[in-house]
């Protein structure tokens, strides 16, 4: 997929990779149809869909009123009737107003009909705290979605995956929640020339022997920063899960079998959060590989506070990650 024309000197920004993936998917298949609030003429709240309205027209890039439950329900119907909708939820926090079409309709319809329908639909959304978005614009809710059988959950951490996972999500014949990270939109990440990986395949971002850190999304970069800044030269393996569902337990298990120690890092709240699944998978299947406790490091059990100092205290960051790695190593 990285053909010569896209393997330019500077890798595209994450947001450009998303835009390119949408463009390429729309070029490749006339059934791909975008819908969402301000995604058309306005180009999207953050500009992800910029230019698509002009290129593909109002019939394939549908601006909608602020009626997300209706829009997503319509996307479900459109998917069953032959389109491949990509419906945007401007912030993942807003799934609270439109969860039924995701959870009770899209996720279940193929199963409930005994395979009688396909629901090829992408729920595009984004999260990303740390900029005083306030409690209703800062949540990381991928754990809720990952708990619902029938939904894939993809969380690209860099430009390459932004492109590949968007294409994979649109190509899939089942519903996918694609959770972008808005604090990565403006970033150019190395690795654009990488071969694409499919969903369900984790990526070892950094090799190491002493401890395995399992993470995804923006926390991949926070973890790399933490490791780079750590004294003492512990050898840290960093795994980017890329997709929570499907979950690549094998790669995690193989790494932990070597390192004997594990830390799971995520931006979501720790309490009943997605990290529990990964810890549980290890505790259930790799307990005797462990030389020390497997730990989670996520956000505190609090709504996201507005004030920067409070927010920093609530969210995981590179300092905290470094401390958590050290704690796991020292145990």
């Amino acid at each position, binding site marked *: 997929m990285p053909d010569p024309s896209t393997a330019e000197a500077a890798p595209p920004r994450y947001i450009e990779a998303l835009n390119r993936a949408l463009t390429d998917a729309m070029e490749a298949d006339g059934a791909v149809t975008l819908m969402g609030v301000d995604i058309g003429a306005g180009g999207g709240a953050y500009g992800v869909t910029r230019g698509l309205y002009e290129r593909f027209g109002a019939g394939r890039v549908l601006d909608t009123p602020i009626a997300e*439950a209706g829009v997503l329900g319509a996307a479900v*119907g459109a*998917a069953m009737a*032959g389109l491949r909708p990509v419906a945007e939820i401007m912030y993942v926090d807003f799934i609270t107003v439109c969860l039924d079409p995701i959870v009770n309709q899209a996720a279940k319809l*193929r199963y409930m009909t*005994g395979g009688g329908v396909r629901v090829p639909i992408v729920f595009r959304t984004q999260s990303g705290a740390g900029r005083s978005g306030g409690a209703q614009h800062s949540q990381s809710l991928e754990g809720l979605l990952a708990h619902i059988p029938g939904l894939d959950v993809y969380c690209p951490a860099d430009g390459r995956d932004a492109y590949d996972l968007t294409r994979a999500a649109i190509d899939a014949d089942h519903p996918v929640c694609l959770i972008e990270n808005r604090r990565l939109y403006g970033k150019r990440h190395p690795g654009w020339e990488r071969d694409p990986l499919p969903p369900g395949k984790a990526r070892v971002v950094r090799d190491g022997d002493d401890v395995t850190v399992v993470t995804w999304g923006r926390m991949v970069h926070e973890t790399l920063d933490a490791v780079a800044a750590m004294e003492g030269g512990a050898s840290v393996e960093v795994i980017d899960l890329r997709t929570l569902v499907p979950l690549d337990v094998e790669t995690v298990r193989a790494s932990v079998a070597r390192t004997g120690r594990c830390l799971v890092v995520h931006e979501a709240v720790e309490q009943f959060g997605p990290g529990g699944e990964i810890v549980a998978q290890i505790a259930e299947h790799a307990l005797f590989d462990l030389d020390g406790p497997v730990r989670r490091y996520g956000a505190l059990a609090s709504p996201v506070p507005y004030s920067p100092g409070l927010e920093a205290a609530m969210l995981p960051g590179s300092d905290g990650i470094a401390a958590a790695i050290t704690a796991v190593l020292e145990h």
Partner: protein
Amino acid sequence: MGADSSEGPAVADAGAPSRPGVVDPPGAPVHARPGDLERLLGRYGTMARIRAFEEAVGRRFRDGDIHGFVHTSIGQEAAATGACAALRDGDYLTTTHRGHGHCLAKGADATAMMAELFGRETGTCRGRGGSMHLAQADLGILGANGIVGAGIPIAVGAALAARSAGAGAVAVAFFGEGAVHSGAFHEGIGLSVAWQVPVIFACENNHYAEFTPSEGSWNGPSLVDRAASYGMTAISVDGNDVFAVEDAMSELVAAARAGEGPAFVELRTYRMGGHYEGDATPYRADDEVERWRSADPLARARAALEPLGALDRADALDAAAAAEIEAAVDEALAAPYPDPASVLENIRA
């Protein structure tokens, strides 16, 4: 959806206080002209099949062959039959927890439906869905739904896809009058108006939402005024007159096919049974039910067939329906349950 009578006390014996009555039933015969005989017999046959199906459902439920919640549509056969008579192959519909009639009228096979209710591998959904999730994509039946209102935007989306496909197909959302208060109704209708897609909102007003009479309970406008306020054609018809329903729907469907956008129709009818099988309906007066019995959609069709000298043919259709459904029940009861090992099939595609 109803009481799990095996383990909790059913609501059936609740001593609910009396409630405001519902409107009087319309009782005239179906308005048919001589040339309509064959058409009327066709509709009567469909209604008879739905009636026979629902009656069998009631019996099989009491016998324990139907495992989950089940809601029948006895008394509402004309709405399903008349509305679906206005549709053709390629058109879509969504329906509700009370969707057997719509599925049959759109062409679903009674044996496969019954097998679904019995949880069998030969069911329309291979036993995975049950009554509340009946669906058959190749007939455009995009599903019954257990979430009140949820089918409305789904139909809007199907209509959007139909418009994109350009073959003139339409979508129909069936729902009860209880759904109009939901956000899904408002957002779905609003989108249909914004996009001007070919969808008909077919609201079966059977006057009750579970145990609550819909007239007079929530103030607010009539169903038609409510829908008209969004800026679409909105009409109300006698939902127990199969021709009245068919004629009204045919007009609305033709307009939608011609690109005139969405429309709404209230189908005034009555739920003769309880909300769910097993509901003893303490919340409504017996004489109300009796009064509506005189407006039975099948009886009214028979009243039109009588002067045409076709009652014997109607009897034959009743007999055929009874035989078909009996055979369907037998065949479905003989069908295998799904292999438990297949439980994880069809989660992803």
